[in-house]
Structures are given as C-alpha cells and as structure tokens.
C-alpha cells in the first residue's frame, strides 16, 4: 500500500485550489495584485513557450499581449461584443499575428531574431498610437471596457475578476502541463537543444517553430483580454518594449521551460516590487542589483526545469 505522495502536480493543484480562497484572506488591493499576477503569469508562461521551450529569442512578446487586449477593447466598446466572446477572437488574432510575423524570421538565429522582435514591438506600439482607421484610440487608448458576464452574472467585483483570472491561469497551467507530455511540446525541446539531431529524427523545424509562436501568441492574447478587463482601459504604453524585456527576464530568472520557475519568476519580478513600495525611489536600484545577483548565483534560473523522469 502506498501512502499519499505529494508530487509536484498534486502540490501545484493544492496551491492553485488554495489560491481560490485569496479574496477571503486579502484586501482588495492584494486581490488585484493577485489578479495581475495571474495575468502576467499567463503572459510569462506564453513567453516561455517561445523562449524557454522552443529556444527562440523573442523580445517583443508584449505585441501579442497587446493584440489580445486591443481586440477585446475594440470589439467590446465599439460592437458591444460580450467580453467572454471576444476572448477566442483575441487568441485567434494574436496567434495569427504570431505565426505571420515569425514565419519569415524563423531562420534568423539568436540575437538577430531578438532584434527583429524588438522591431515588431516598436512598430506595434507606434501603430496603436497612430490610431489606424480610428479604431485604437491613439495614445489615449480605449476606455470603458465592460465587465465579463457569466450565465447572466456580472463579474464586476475585484474578487470575481480574480476568480476568472485564476481559473484561466489554472487552465493555462493544465495546457502547459499537457504541452510537456505531448509530441508537439517535446518537439520544441528537441529543437531547442539540438536542431540537427531533432531534424534527423524527423522534426519539421519550420512547422514546429511557427506553431510555437502561434501558441505562445494565443496564450498571450488570452492574457491580453484579461488585462483589458482588469484595467477597463488599454493604451499603447502598457505594451511597450520594456514590458517585453520584463517578460523575457521573468522566464530566465525563474527558469526556462519550468512551470514553477516561471510562476516564481513572475512573483519576483512583479509581486516583490509591490511589497517593497516602501523603498520608494530606491526600489528599482535594488531590484537591478538583485537581478544581477540572482543570475550570478543561479545562472540556470531559480527553479530550473527538472530533468524529468518517465
């Protein structure tokens, strides 16, 4: 007879379930931080699909996050499409953008891909600011985004929004776990570690990488929708290049390809600065030093991917 064994999965499920109770334990500002944590965690996990798992240096990931947010904002405020209906569209459009933008770039290696994605990010922000067709609201962005409703129930309170974010984070975590255990997810890792060896096993690099970009973008699009809902407003400044840099750093600091690592990275890069608000203007000076220290002491990230078993 085996007793109850607390493996990573069960521990994760337990933590997630405990997280559902956060609104009862925290005041609403911390609930909103938890909600943003869930949203950024989804975005960081989506970056991890491209950067951590497929090994492609994507430093423009805020683009897909932004596309998701804008799709929801535009559809909801101009055509009154219910929020939850905009969600699949946001994912789909972000995925299409990911696939289209990456297709010509996949043959670029390492640093050159990084620069090209930075370029996309700059172009995206400028495009939103220039208000093409009058639909993005220019630099003001779009305000007055509605709240999602589920079975006629308006998810208006911060707690309700948190639960929505948390449940979707849970689903994304499930998808990430499934990704680890399916042929597509493994193909990404083969390509990252050794493209030549992978190709001799029959992995179609071009197809798999494009798909990785599409999946990463789709999940970022999902997070974008949640972001737009949480803020009830979107503007170009939320999707600038420095946001992409933060996402990039979250994955590396946490541990590439590691779900707990990326979650911890998100917590460190996003939640910890909230705790240290008291440091005021010293905050990001200290934070910069901490980033160097973490990398020097743990170059593989804080919780690197375990060499997993069968």
């Amino acid at each position, binding site marked *: 007879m085996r007793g109850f064994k607390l493996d990573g999965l069960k521990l994760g499920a337990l933590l997630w379930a405990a997280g559902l109770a956060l609104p009862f334990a925290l005041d609403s500002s911390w609930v909103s931080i938890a909600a943003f944590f869930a949203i950024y965690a989804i975005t960081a996990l989506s970056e991890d699909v491209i950067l951590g798992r497929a090994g492609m240096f994507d430093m423009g990931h805020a683009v897909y996050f932004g596309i998701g947010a804008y799709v929801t904002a535009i559809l909801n405020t101009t055509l009154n499409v219910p929020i939850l209906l905009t969600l699949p569209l946001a994912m789909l459009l972000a995925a299409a953008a990911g696939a289209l933008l990456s297709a010509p770039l996949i043959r670029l290696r390492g640093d050159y891909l990084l620069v090209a994605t930075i370029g996309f990010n700059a172009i995206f922000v400028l495009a939103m600011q220039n208000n093409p067709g009058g639909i993005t609201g220019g630099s003001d962005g779009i305000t007055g985004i509605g709240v999602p409703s589920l079975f006629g129930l308006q998810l208006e309170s911060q707690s309700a929004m948190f639960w929505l974010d948390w449940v979707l984070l849970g689903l994304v975590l499930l998808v990430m776990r499934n990704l680890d255990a399916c*042929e597509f997810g493994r193909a990404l890792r083969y390509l990252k570690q050794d493209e*030549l*060896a992978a190709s001799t*096993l029959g992995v179609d690099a071009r197809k798999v990488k494009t798909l990785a970009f599409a*999946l990463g973008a789709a999940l970022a699009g999902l997070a974008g929708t949640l972001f737009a809902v949480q803020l009830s407003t979107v503007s170009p400044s939320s999707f600038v290049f420095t946001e992409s840099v933060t996402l990039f750093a979250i994955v590396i600091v946490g541990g590439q390809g590691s779900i707990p690592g990326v979650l911890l990275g998100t917590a460190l890069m996003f939640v910890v600065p909230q705790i240290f608000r008291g440091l005021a203007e010293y905050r990001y000076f200290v934070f910069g030093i901490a980033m160097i220290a973490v990398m020097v002491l743990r170059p593989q990230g804080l919780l690197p991917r375990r060499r997993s078993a*069968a």
Partner: protein
Amino acid sequence: MTALLELDGIGISFGGLRAVDDLSFTVNQGQIVGLIGPNGAGKTTVFNMITGVYKPASGTIRWQGNDITGAKPARIATLGLRRTFQTIRLFADMSVFENVRAGCHLAARQHWWQGLLALPAQRREEAELAARTHDILRRLDLEGVADTPATSLPYGVQRRVELARTLAGQPRLIILDEPAAGLNDAESAALNDTIFMIRDTGVTILLVEHDMNVVMQVSDHIVVINFGRKIAEGNATAIRTNPAVIEAYLGRDDDEATAA
C-alpha cells in the same frame, strides 16, 4: 539483393576544396556496409549529404530507386533513414527514456491540439509509444537507467542510448557515425553484438568507424575513401591487404621501401 541506398557520382566543395568527388557506392538491403578512410577523408561529409544536412553539388542519391538528392533532413527521416552522430548528440536535459522516446517522433499521429487538450486518443498513443520505448530500452539493456539524465551516464551507455533513439524510429537504414569512439575495450566488443542484433531485426547499416577491429569484424562490404574519392571497395580481407588502403592509412614511402 536489392539496392536500398545508391550514391551516384556525388560531390561537394567547401571554399574551393573538393571535399567529396564523384563518389559512388551502393548499400543493399540487409547489409552492413563499412565506410572507412583516414581522418579528414570526407566520411562525415558523405553522411551529411545522405541525411540532407548538405546538398550535393553534383550527382544523385537514390532511395529505393527514387531520387532524394537535396531533400531536407526531416524529410529524409520520414523515409526510415536515421543516423547517429560522431560526437554524441543526445538531448542533454532529458532522461534516457525521453531521449529514446524522441526517436518515435514520426510514429506519433497526434495533432498538436489533441496534445494540448490531452484527449483520450492522444493519451492512448502516448501509452503505446511509451511501451514501444520501453521495449527498445529493454532490448538494449537500458531499462535500469530509463529515468537517469542521459548525459550523466558513462560514454559507452550514452552511445547505446543514441542507438536506441535511432532504433525507436523503426528505421530501414541506420547510419552509424563512429559508434565505437570513446568506448573501452569491453564496450567496443559488446558493440559488435549490438550491431549484429540490429541487423538481425532487418535493419540495414552503413557504418563509419575508425576502430578497425569493429569494422573488419562486422562489415559485409567495405568502401574506402581518401580525399573524397573512393580508393577501394571489397570485403575485410581484401581491404586489409590492399596497398592503396595501407598507404592511405600509414602514409606513403616516397624514397625507400619499408617492409611491413
């Protein structure tokens, strides 16, 4: 005997240097063919052309009579043509099981979305492929280290893992690029048995190897190249006594005769 793989006059140059020149040979179904030659003779380049890493500048490569010259590596793999690497290229962050499971990539029929949703069909397939992987691990005596990180194992075991990964793709032909490199004597001796075992399951083998003990003992047919050209072809006994081969390996005596 039917020809499985035919090289017909292939050649390639790098920066003005003719690395492989007008090379032709045939690998028949069920054979073990050794491809040998001194260091830098162009053997690995030949492999890279067969497996689609390089595109030959001239000549044709045929697979069961069909022209596959210049096809991409992933497409070559779908034909059932697999290879190992001279310097082992295992996936460093993965266990032995995961590495061998990687060989089953093309056998997986699941779509990516089935995988992300963990649909029953996908899970069934995963279970089947896991079983296939375990089967191969058992055959190559790797069951005991299935969960060990592959690159933490002794070199000889890593060689076997790479072989197992190759076999997991259920290949028709495998190209072994110096499988004995870095092995100790006992491992080297065991390698012969492994190669015969693979051949006995119906897999054709093209072997590049420096350890002549291995090459001479296992090969049905040996092709010798030097400077990218074929200098001899035949069975082990003929090759060992071929003056051109000896000269290629031990160097030439230009001004005096040395009795060997």
